[in-house]
């Protein structure tokens, strides 16, 4: 017989694999809801364009961010005006440096601080909070008291102190922001963990005999990610604002590195000389990025509707 038993079993195996119905996970549903939200989608595109700008922008820049254009130095308010001929698309700053390149530089640094700061907060805060919340009891009390103590330290004061003592550098900025940004996240994650811990599927996992850390990894953290994602997108603008404030005070990144805050600070200072572009360009990027992040956060919150949890 041509049709043998193995062939039949192989055929049925293939058939059952072809027939396997694709599942529709909750993330998938959330993604669809998110993309239906026009404001969020627009914001995502805007943010992406800003990021693209910071990478591709330098390719069409005619001046670097450090070069001083001696031609315009005497009379910046007329000669430093934004134009295509001089190559200063955004004009120049007070010292004759190309504002276009400076804005690109500032965008890179501000976004980096925001995103990396948020990332540190998310990773450290989530793991810390999940462990504290899951194990409860003395471990939880101990861990959260540390958080309380760290939170009660006046943050700005410490950050400024660090920057003054150890000198201004991007690294110091990260250290300062990193020290504090994970605290809120840890609190939130701990709270969520406490409620997830009581759910039946966690009880089921314990009954099965799954080890504690596997439970945290497989059952608790994936169900937290909704809240974490929303909060993280709000953290990014928070970081950028903090950094901008520090830079505005003059304590942030050092020259020739710059950030939105520093640029805005300079621009605000020279407003009265009529060189408005020095303020408006960095301000523009600052505002649309923050707005986009807030709308994305809102969109995420709507998409990850708690009813589905």
């Amino acid at each position, binding site marked *: 017989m041509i049709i043998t038993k193995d062939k039949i079993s192989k055929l049925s195996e293939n058939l059952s694999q072809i027939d396997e119905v694709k599942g*529709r996970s909750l993330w998938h549903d959330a993604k669809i809801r998110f993309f239906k939200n026009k404001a969020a989608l627009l914001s995502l595109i805007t943010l992406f364009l800003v990021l693209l700008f910071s990478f591709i922008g330098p390719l069409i820049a005619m001046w670097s961010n450090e070069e001083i254009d001696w031609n315009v130095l005497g009379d910046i308010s007329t000669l430093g005006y934004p134009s295509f001929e001089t190559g200063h698309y955004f004009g120049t700053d007070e010292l004759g440096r190309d504002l276009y390149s400076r804005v690109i530089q500032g965008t890179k640094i501000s976004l980096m601080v925001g995103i990396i700061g948020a990332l540190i907060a998310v990773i450290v805060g989530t793991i810390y909070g999940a462990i504290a919340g899951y194990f409860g009891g003395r471990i939880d009390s101990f861990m959260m008291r540390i958080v309380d103590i760290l939170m009660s330290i006046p943050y700005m004061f410490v950050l400024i102190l660090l920057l003054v003592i150890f000198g201004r550098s991007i690294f110091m900025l990260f250290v300062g922001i990193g020290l504090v940004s994970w605290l809120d996240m840890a609190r939130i994650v701990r709270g969520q963990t406490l409620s997830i811990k009581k759910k039946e599927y966690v009880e089921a996992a314990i*009954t099965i*005999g799954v080890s504690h850390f596997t439970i945290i990894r497989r059952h608790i953290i994936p169900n937290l990610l909704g809240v974490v994602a929303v909060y993280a997108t709000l953290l990014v603008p928070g970081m950028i604002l903090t950094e901008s404030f520090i830079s505005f005070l003059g304590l942030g990144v050092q020259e020739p590195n710059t950030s939105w805050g520093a640029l805005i600070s300079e621009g605000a200072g020279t407003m009265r000389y009529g060189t408005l572009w020095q303020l408006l360009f960095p301000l523009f990027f600052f505002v649309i990025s923050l707005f986009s992040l807030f709308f994305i956060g809102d969109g995420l919150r709507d998409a990850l509707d708690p009813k589905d949890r």
Partner: protein
Amino acid sequence: MSNSILKVNNLFVDYISNNSFLFPWEKTKIFRAVEDISFEIFEGETLGIVGETGSGKSTIAKAIINLLKVSAGKILFKNNEISNLDEKHMRKYRKEIQMIFQDPLASLNPRMNVGEIISEPLKTHYPNLDKKEIKEQVQEIMENVGLLANQINRYPHEFSGGQCQRIGIARSLILKPKLIICDEPVSSLDVSIQAQVINLLKELQERFKLTYLFITHDLNIAKHMSDNIMVLNLGKMVEINKSDEVFSNPKHEYTKKLISSIPKI
């Protein structure tokens, strides 16, 4: 002579609220959830535990699977003491004692698909199995509980209540346990689906020689599922007897009251 699968001797479970670490002037409050419960289940049998809300039936279930501490008394599984064991030692018994939960949707992790949910026990206790083996076992168990094997990638929210409960049953069966504790497994299901799930549980018991501890507040279902029934009221054991005896010849006032409250069709 059947083997004794589960033996509970004089079980007491208290809930203790103890804030004296932080607030030394507060007295420790003790709530006695379960008082002096004793019973024994033999292989292949079903013991039904019947009681109303607050009677302590879920507490007994949780104490047996070590989710709650036993304040006094012993729980013996196949003549080994398992009450208050630490997790390391309890681990090897977990393969043999499984539980089916009340709310089918809530007992499944919404972020995992059916295949992952059902295979979790396998992956936990037999980490060396390869993917193909695991998949085969999962699909086989799915067919046994009446689920289509090709649904293996779907997520819990895509199924109905009755189907979710079947997933829960499949998950509890895959390790071929000796004892399955059913904590009100059909209470949240529609009436017509309840009957399907109960028939399934009975069929599986016969096929795989399972032993059930069946917890419910519904007397009709208890009588149908169980060989013996224990009636609980406010944490105390009020009556324990063969099913037929409990209904034809109830000895305790509370049992009589329960039986008379059943709406008659």
